[in-house]
């Protein structure tokens, strides 16, 4: 079943068009990698899909589970099952990870017509998911991302993803700034969370992450459009030949 269908998406920031008519379809059970050079529009795509206000959509449509995604508030998108692992996770002093996640989990449950989660069940769930991402429980009472290293912040994103169980997760350059151990942990987490019902979009600059999380599809984003799509071998080819190769080959 189709989870996400993007058709001819055009988007601006500060009146400058960044996405020039992008098409992409993601079905349940799929992992898509989006690769591309700096400035190609990768992060803009992530921001537009999650509803960041600085971006203006000028044309095209995005269906998420057959609903018009672009009309939803950022919080409703999340509650519908969309998740973004931020490239630059924000530090929120004073809000504990536990408190933050409990609010998020309960908002989603409320949206689904469920009762708030019991405190003990919630903490059990946190402990289970924390094992998956190899996070120490002492971290629950720490403020969200405050004083975390780059790698810890990225792991926290994946932990949040595990807690919220999204239908579609977008990982925006989650691999950047990760050392090899953190990369392994994050990838393990993603691989264990993958089911036949959910899907992932992995936005990355490098092929490295795709050794751990094997994509079904690889897309090359350049100048605000997807210019080439293929299987996992496309990533290796890109790594070898560089982005200019695709650019030259298609345009």
């Amino acid at each position, binding site marked *: 079943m189709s989870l996400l269908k993007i058709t001819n998406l055009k988007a601006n920031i500060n009146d400058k068009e960044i996405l020039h008519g992008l098409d992409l379809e993601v079905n349940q059970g799929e992992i898509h990698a989006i690769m591309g050079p700096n400035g190609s529009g990768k992060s803009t795509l992530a921001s537009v899909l999650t509803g960041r206000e600085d971006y203006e959509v000028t044309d095209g449509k995005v269906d998420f589970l057959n609903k018009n995604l672009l009309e939803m508030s*950022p919080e409703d998108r*999340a*509650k519908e099952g969309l998740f973004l692992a931020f490239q630059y996770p924000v530090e929120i002093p*004073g809000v504990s990870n536990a408190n*933050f996640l409990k609010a998020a989990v309960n908002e989603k449950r409320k949206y689904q017509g469920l009762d708030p989660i019991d405190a003990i069940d919630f903490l059990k769930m946190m402990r289970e998911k924390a094992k998956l991402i190899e996070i120490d*429980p002492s971290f629950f*009472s720490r403020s969200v991302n405050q004083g975390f290293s780059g790698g810890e912040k990225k792991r926290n994103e994946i932990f949040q993803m595990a807690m*919220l169980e999204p239908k579609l997760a977008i990982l925006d350059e989650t691999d950047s700034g990760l050392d090899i151990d953190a990369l392994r942990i994050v990838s393990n987490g993603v691989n264990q969370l993958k089911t036949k019902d959910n899907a992932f979009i992995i936005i990355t600059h490098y092929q490295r992450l795709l050794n751990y999380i094997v994509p079904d599809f690889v897309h090359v984003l350049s100048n605000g459009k997807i210019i080439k799509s293929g299987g996992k071998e496309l990533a290796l080819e890109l790594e070898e030949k560089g982005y200019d190769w695709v650019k030259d080959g298609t345009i």
Partner: protein
Amino acid sequence: MDKNMETMNFTDKVKQIYLQNGVNSDSKYRLDARNYIENNNLPTAKHENWKYINLAILNKYNFEINNKYSLPDGFLADNYIVKDIESYNIFIINGIINYELSNIPRDIILNYIDNNANIGSIDDDRQTYFSQLNTAIFLNGIFIEINKNIHLDKPIHIIHILDCSENESFINTRRIFKYGANSEATIIESFFKFGENKVLYNSVAEIFIEENSNCHHIKIQQDKKIDFLIDFVQANQQKYSNYVNFTFTDAGKFVRNNLNSKLNDENIETHFLGVFIGDNNNLIDNHTFVDHANPNCFSNENYRGILFDSSTGIFNGKILVRPDAQKTNAYQSNKNILASKDATINTKPELEIYADDVKCSHGATSGALDKSSLFYLRARGIDEKRAESLLMNAFVAEVIEELKNQQVKDYLFKITRNKLNEDMHFIVDDDIVNINNI
């Protein structure tokens, strides 16, 4: 009432009427204050320390000095006791101790303040018009002495009842807190109005903190019915002492707090913490002063304000490091969130440093909530309103976290959460520890 009263301004009323209520005291200190009041007028906006404030509003009311101590009809003490905090409660009605309603710990001395109480620790240049006025005319007050070597098991909660049920009331209350050597105690003070008439409460505290003693002083100003609340605190610290003041203000029309500490010896610690939340067109003014008069002392100041509607906040924090006060560490921070475009904050750090081997820093910020934090929360499914309230709670919680007494902290979390519309259950660390055993 004097028949001319209605046409007099506040200064005239002070000189011609209120001073008559002053006490016959031999105290030079009180006579000096009286002299000061006779020769000075209500400060105007031209006065540096009152420049954002229009005190002329006081001219509108016919305040009468109120020393009534009998319990007003319909008064229920239970309404004012904080059940979440196990404490010794001391009720003072218009500045006068009500022993019947109070439960008093052993190991302290509690008394009324008499005419010749040992007051006078406020330096001339720290005085305000209102502290002078209090000194000149107060009749009532409370004296508490924590005996030396005593660590009090529970906080003392002083509940100030401002009874203005019969007339527009002007109430002057004096407090003296003495901490004997090696003692430790928490004093909580809260302020409530009883009655429908306007009230002006002008209170002064002098706190004497002897060697190696620990004073935790929590002021909770949360009764929005109080019209004018003016409080002045002077702490006097001896060596190895620690003074922690936490002032929470979510109050009525006008609140002015002056908070001073004088560091009279070496190895002293001073913590000034504050949270203020303004709304409607209310004004909250915090003036603080840390007097580093001696070497090897530490002071830390952290004030945070959130201003809604067309409220005004004022923070003026002065740190004086005198020439002898080498190896001083003094830190100050004031951060503010303007939650409305009509709200105003005036923040002014003043560092005067005359010693050369010191570490001092100060910082002040004012602005809206951080947009990227808001988006981060919303992207996790938390509604915008709730995300805002969560961030505002976190903003003030960081100051509350600096306190030690868990019940006091939880209570302050609760009142700020209620104020900032946050209905979330706060997961405390204990919950997390428990889960390790499941």
